[in-house]
């Protein structure tokens, strides 16, 4: 049997081109080259498969030219006629992770070629793509390569050979897709078994874990809103013009805190949005549309609220991991509390 053909996708960093300063490197196809993490995959493939080409693309380039980059890469992949496509692993690099996910999804859906990628569980790409493609969990840094490469390579061989794919537990990828199989016992009998275990207080495993939505119980009402200090916060990316803290346009790695003492409205000459996930024209024209400082000032003047807090907190919700968002909010909630804020209006886009 001839060797399976593999195309591998990596970013500028793992290709040895450079770090953040080289993240705008355009996509390029390197036929016949095995680069960086490809070496580890190659070692695991043995004689069964070969990397016939490596595609390298800068993370910023991909994020900012998504449609163009995807189209270009898909064209290259198609030419190489691979049996399987591998991206990454991306570890905890957010933009690299989402790029791996996006390109894998495109290759799978447009070319019908099986795909696999890998990344750290908290990489935002994991949540975004684990229900669409096979994503293997890795450590949060490149030190995890020696563990990840053999697992991904072995699974890629299975995909390439069109073998039957088992559950996430059997194969090791992140749980995300429901896979049917025939159980030993019929459903009613399994239900009775589960019921007996539940009655006896013994451990049992539900066959369908219900999604848990993070429902927040409302706080008690504010007794006298006319005396309350109210803060504005947003995931809509409103920042002072020029984005002084460089909040990322997607997968934000930070939040900003900005003083609005004396600011009566957010005007286009002083504020803008850093958000890369919606058409920014209307937000940039009048940032009040996302963070309504003007209306709050009116209410303040009319005596309908006590006052508007003199700082606002902002980040970009676009693809930002829930875990990160939680972390930011938990942090600035403490600051709000310390400043004696009674209530927060959180706007989204």
């Amino acid at each position, binding site marked *: 049997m001839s060797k399976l053909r593999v195309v591998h996708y990596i970013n500028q960093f793992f290709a040895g081109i450079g770090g953040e300063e080289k993240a705008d490197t355009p996509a390029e196809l390197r036929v016949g080259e095995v680069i960086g993490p490809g070496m580890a995959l190659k070692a695991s493939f043995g004689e069964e498969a070969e990397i016939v080409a490596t595609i390298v693309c800068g993370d910023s380039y991909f994020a900012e030219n998504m449609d163009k980059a995807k189209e270009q890469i898909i064209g290259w992949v198609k030419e190489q006629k691979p049996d399987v496509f591998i991206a990454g692993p991306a570890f905890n690099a957010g933009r690299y992770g989402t790029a791996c996910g996006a390109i894998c999804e495109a290759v799978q859906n447009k070319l019908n070629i099986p795909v696999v990628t890998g990344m750290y569980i908290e990489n935002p790409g994991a949540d975004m793509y684990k229900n669409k493609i096979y994503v293997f969990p890795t450590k949060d840094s490149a030190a995890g390569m020696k563990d990840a490469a053999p697992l991904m390579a072995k699974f890629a061989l299975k995909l390439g050979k069109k073998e039957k794919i088992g559950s996430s537990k059997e194969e090791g990828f992140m749980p995300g897709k429901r896979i*049917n199989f025939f159980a030993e016992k019929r459903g009613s009998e399994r239900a009775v078994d589960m019921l*007996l275990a539940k009655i006896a207080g013994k451990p049992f495993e539900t066959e369908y874990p219900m999604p848990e939505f993070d429902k927040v119980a409302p706080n008690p009402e504010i007794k006298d809103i006319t005396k309350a200090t109210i803060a504005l916060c947003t995931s809509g990316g409103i920042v002072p013009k020029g984005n002084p803290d460089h909040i990322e346009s997607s997968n934000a790695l930070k939040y900003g805190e900005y003083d609005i003492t004396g600011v009566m409205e957010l005007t286009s000459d002083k504020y803008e949005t850093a958000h890369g996930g919606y058409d920014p024209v209307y937000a940039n024209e009048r940032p009040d549309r996302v963070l309504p400082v003007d209306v709050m000032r009116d209410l303040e003047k009319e005596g309908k609220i006590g006052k508007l807090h003199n700082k606002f907190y902002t980040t970009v919700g676009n693809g930002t991991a829930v875990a990160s968002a939680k972390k930011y909010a938990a942090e600035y909630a403490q600051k709000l509390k310390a400043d004696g804020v009674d209530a927060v209006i959180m706007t989204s886009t």
Partner: protein
Amino acid sequence: MKLELGYIQIKDIVFGNESKISNGVLTVDKAPIEALAKEDERIKSVTLDIAKPGESVRITPVKDVIEPRCKVEGDCDIFPGTIGSVKMAGFGKTHVCKGMAVVTAGKIVGFQEGIIDMQGPGADYTPFSKLLNLVCVFEPVDGLKQHDYEEAVRFAGFKIAKYIGELSKDVKPDTTETFEVCNFKENMEKFKGLPRVGYVHMLQSQGLLHDTYVYGVDAKKILPTLMYPTEVFDGAIVSGNCVSACDKNPTYVHMNNPVVVDLFKQHGKTINFCAHIITNENVYLADKQRSSNFTAKLCEMLALDAVIITEEGFGNPDADLIMNCTKIEKKGIKTVLVTDEYAGRDGGSQSLADADPLGNACVTAGNANEVIVLPKLDKVIGTLDYVNKIAGGNENSMRADGTIEIEIQAITGATSEVGFGKLTATY
């Protein structure tokens, strides 16, 4: 009170000049069955055929599957309130023609589904591929309204199943099985110390081809009520035919309700199976609130420790399932849910339209959106002219080579939410 089921194993079905069961072979004379069907002036004709396990045969569009049974002792009838008298059923002796079914088929609406393959990959997904099937394809008189057609097919199926069942009246059963039930007081005394377990059985009740009947009553008009678990064995609950073949229970499944059967197996040993509670899945939201309130109240009044709750259907019933689950759990009664999933073709979407963390013990009958390819089979009983229009099919379902690419939701009984099958799903 006891119900004894006498199982007569049917080993073959043949057509002949005289209907009879002898040495396990069912001989069917077509004429009396055709006459029975045509008692209803809405039916123009019925075509009878036989489909056996392993044959290269596809039956479609399947409307219902019914097991022939016959009362041999007890002052009650099979299919009480439907074609039998409305007397209470579930006691005495009943003969069961095992290993076979009456399958009804007909094109009630143009997007109808319901496939039973007797061979190949499709056969693995339907429990009815393992049975000897006497298939009745009904043609309506011209211009008949769908409501009337549905009702005519429904009743004709029961009459034919009863006719076949009665052939077993004087046949000695190969095996028998006895189910004993008792009243509340006796039950409390006899099984003292065992956990009190109930079955909350949700019945599809939304409209044409989404209905279920209990002693002849449309289930959308009931308040949740109590049954002896043996009543279903005499056909107390029947199907009003279907549009969602994978997870609407055919009458056969009601008559062999697997949750009732499997709870009975533990009854008196590990549990006290003391209540079969039926409820509905109406479209009107206040009805859902009322029914789930009553269901939870009944569980509480009966001092149950735990219940199994089974769903029937997609979407709307998910809301009833979660209401029943949460209200019962909040009364301190443990629940196990049985459902199926619509997680999309790639399995990556949310499975249910509603969810709650209290539903922490859930059995699934699999993702109904899974796509499979059914091979071309030699013979079709019914008609294939609508296959491109069945749920889970698309305009390319019927491929040039005669194979059909389809979601398993088109297969009769594929994702039974009373747990009749072995299909399940995992991450």
